[in-house]
């Protein structure tokens, strides 16, 4: 396993001060990006703060080879093979808005399925940060015909969005290991890249169990598909609460009961 660290910036200098031994050990080469993306260096500094990372098969990204619908590309990441995952950052190197979402599981597996918009063929990566501060990066290349991020959402184009905004529907499937929760929140998720339509998207969403304990936190960005649909493994829980906000301060607040 090869570790890599960016050349000194102020932040790193302080870390180095605190731990000079490990700094001496880290003078290696950057591991080659298995997806060979010209943007990887930028992704690393912007989304992983230039911190230590490793390309790791334990982080799986399941995605179609080619997007059949650039507005709704189904993505699943699974980092449950790692221990102590604090957060997972999903990014698409070649999207005009590369940040897709951040998932911070508290008591449930580090696994999530969702749909996203792709502007062109791009790596879609999931980077899981473990308790030791190291990022574990997995990814897949998804080809796409293009245009997913610069079209008006259907809700905005039809004007229907305001009558359904923030409405939540959900389904729970009981399974032997982990129950499965799927939620859908009505929201146009406008990227701000379609002419004359300002950015309008869900920013944060928390999933709590029936007792109010936090199961996972999420930060959503513009590339998440309109009316976000999220599927999670939720342990033995059968009742949930969903809380969140969009960038206009509109509240999402829903209870999922059997």
């Amino acid at each position, binding site marked *: 396993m090869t570790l890599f660290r960016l050349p000194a910036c102020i932040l790193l*200098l302080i870390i180095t*001060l605190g731990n000079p031994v490990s700094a001496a050990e880290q003078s290696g080469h950057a591991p080659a990006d298995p997806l060979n993306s010209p943007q990887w260096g930028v992704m690393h500094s912007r989304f992983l703060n230039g911190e230590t990372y490793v390309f790791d098969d334990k982080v799986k990204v399941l995605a179609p080879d080619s997007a059949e619908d650039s507005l709704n590309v189904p993505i699943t990441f699974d980092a449950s093979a790692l221990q102590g995952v604090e957060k997972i950052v999903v990014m698409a190197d070649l999207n005009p808005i590369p940040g897709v979402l951040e998932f911070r599981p508290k008591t449930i597996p580090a696994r999530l399925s969702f749909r996203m918009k792709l502007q062109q063929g791009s790596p879609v990566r999931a980077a899981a940060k473990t308790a030791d501060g190291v990022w574990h990066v997995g990814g897949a290349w998804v080809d796409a015909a293009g245009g997913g991020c610069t079209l008006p959402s259907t809700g905005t184009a039809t004007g229907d969005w305001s009558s359904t905004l923030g409405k939540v529907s959900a389904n729970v499937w009981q399974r032997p290991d982990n129950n499965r929760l799927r939620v859908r929140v009505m929201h146009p998720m406008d990227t701000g890249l379609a002419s004359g339509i*300002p950015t309008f998207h869900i920013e944060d969403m928390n999933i709590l169990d029936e007792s109010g304990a936090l199961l996972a936190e999420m930060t959503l960005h513009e590339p998440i598909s309109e009316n976000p649909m999220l599927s999670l493994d939720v342990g033995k829980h059968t009742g949930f609460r969903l809380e969140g*906000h969009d960038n206009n*301060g509109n509240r999402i607040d829903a209870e999922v009961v059997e």
Partner: protein
Amino acid sequence: MKAERSFRQLLLALAVGCALNTTALMAAVTDDDIANDATTTNDVVSYGMGLQGQRFSPLDKLNADTVKNLVPAFVLSYGDEKQRGQEAQPLVHNGKIFVTASYSRAFAADAKTGEELWQYNHRLPDGILPCCDVVNRGGALYDNLFIFSTLDAQLVALDQDTGKVVWKEKMEDFKAGYSNTAAPIVVKGLVITGVSGGEFGIVGKVEARDAKTGKLVWSRPTVEGHMGTLDGKDNGITGETNKSWPGDLWKTGGAATWLGGTYDPDTDSLFFGTGNPAPWNSHLRPGDNLYSSSLLAIDPATGKIKWHYQWTPHDGWDFDGVNEFVSFDLKQEDGTVIKAGGHADRNGFFYVLDRTNGKLINATPFVNQITWAKGIDLKTGRPEYIDDNRPGAPEGAEKGKSVFSAPSFLGGKNWMPMAYNPNTDLFYVPANEWGMDIWNEPITYKKGAAYLGAGFTIKPLNEDYIGALRAIDPKTGKIVWEAKNNAPLWGGVLTTAGNLVFTGTPEGYLKAYDAKTGEELWKFQTGSGVVGCPTTWEQDGEQFVAVPSGWGGAVPLWGGDVAERVKHLNQGGSLWVFKLPKTS
């Protein structure tokens, strides 16, 4: 050792850097900053440039002699295909300038360079019902927040540094005709707002929320019969049910508080004007229709009405009563001072009231033609109506008798705030000379539909001008000087200790006048109509003046025959900032 010391020095430097950052973060807007806004010159933290709303700056570097040297510092374009009227007053704090724009947008820029820091585009549903253009008149600063209201009747608090939403509260249901365009004010930690929608049979109200969280503290309806609240509990009915309204009409009685209000610390009173009673057809609602077309003095702690004065009882002309009530010291000949307030009403009269009790001191015409009343009786405080000039009642399905009335419903003065200069003892009123044919029509209330029951056409009264900036002596009501303008005036006024008065014109100019004589001293063409509110401040030894530019508002939508004078005016959307360069 040496190397280690240098690392320590570096860390110390970083620590100092953090300390400086903390100081910057500490520069939050406090209640004191707002209370002192009228006298501090390095910021503008409230609508009205001080909660009394005098729009007077003690700055005098820029004055009648130096104003010729006033030059543009920058212009910030609001962008987008959305233009329309730009009626806001900018705010300045901590080196940042904040301004709202049409379609419920807000911008922050570096106040010296104009470099944009952030913008917030509020997502508006298709079904919003603004009566009179998609304007916004400005925000309020408090703590680290910039708070403004939106066309879908929401109140949004943004982080001053990032533009991110910190809290948002729904004020009312936009589908019932509510909207909001006025600038909120913050009084002792409470953000105070009104509502728009008087043309849709809404019920006006004044509300106070915790400015840091948005939590509702009190609500005071402005139509008699409706229950107020304080801390979630009933807090007494406004007025007396059915005392001045027949039947059920008070339930959709209008009296919208659509222009916000002012606050006077001397009497600890909020002063909120109320709009027309609904519907416009006055024959449906015999009585005074309290508290429509009135001024309310409200206790900011509880939302209780202390006193009221009704400008136009039983309003039948849409004269409204929302125009600002500006607190000032009325100097008597014997050297005593009366705590007074000035108000230029849509109905054409300039009023001076005792602001401790609402008693009328004087009321004089500030426009040349008034057809609906002979005058205001100083003993009773009531208008002496000319009954013939009230538009007639509809007969069956037929419209009623049409009358020609002056002023028109767009008013001797509309929303655009006047200014008071304590050095010249004059009010500077942006007045308009126009009349209207007006008649009544049958009408019934339907949620979310226009509730007027009237038809109208506005007509200019003079060939050569509609607008007239007028300097009024509040002691006598006499007009000391006037500056005429071809198109109707629709922008706010600013006056300074430099013997200057600033206002804009729909023809695109920001103009400066000599405050004593009315002589035009300076003008600048901004490229689109100026219907916003100019403001001024000092930064790093230089005096700045800012004004939004962008033609729109109610005139192009409702102006009738006035269209001839304004249809060629082009839309826009930008913030112009000027400065008087330092001379060494």
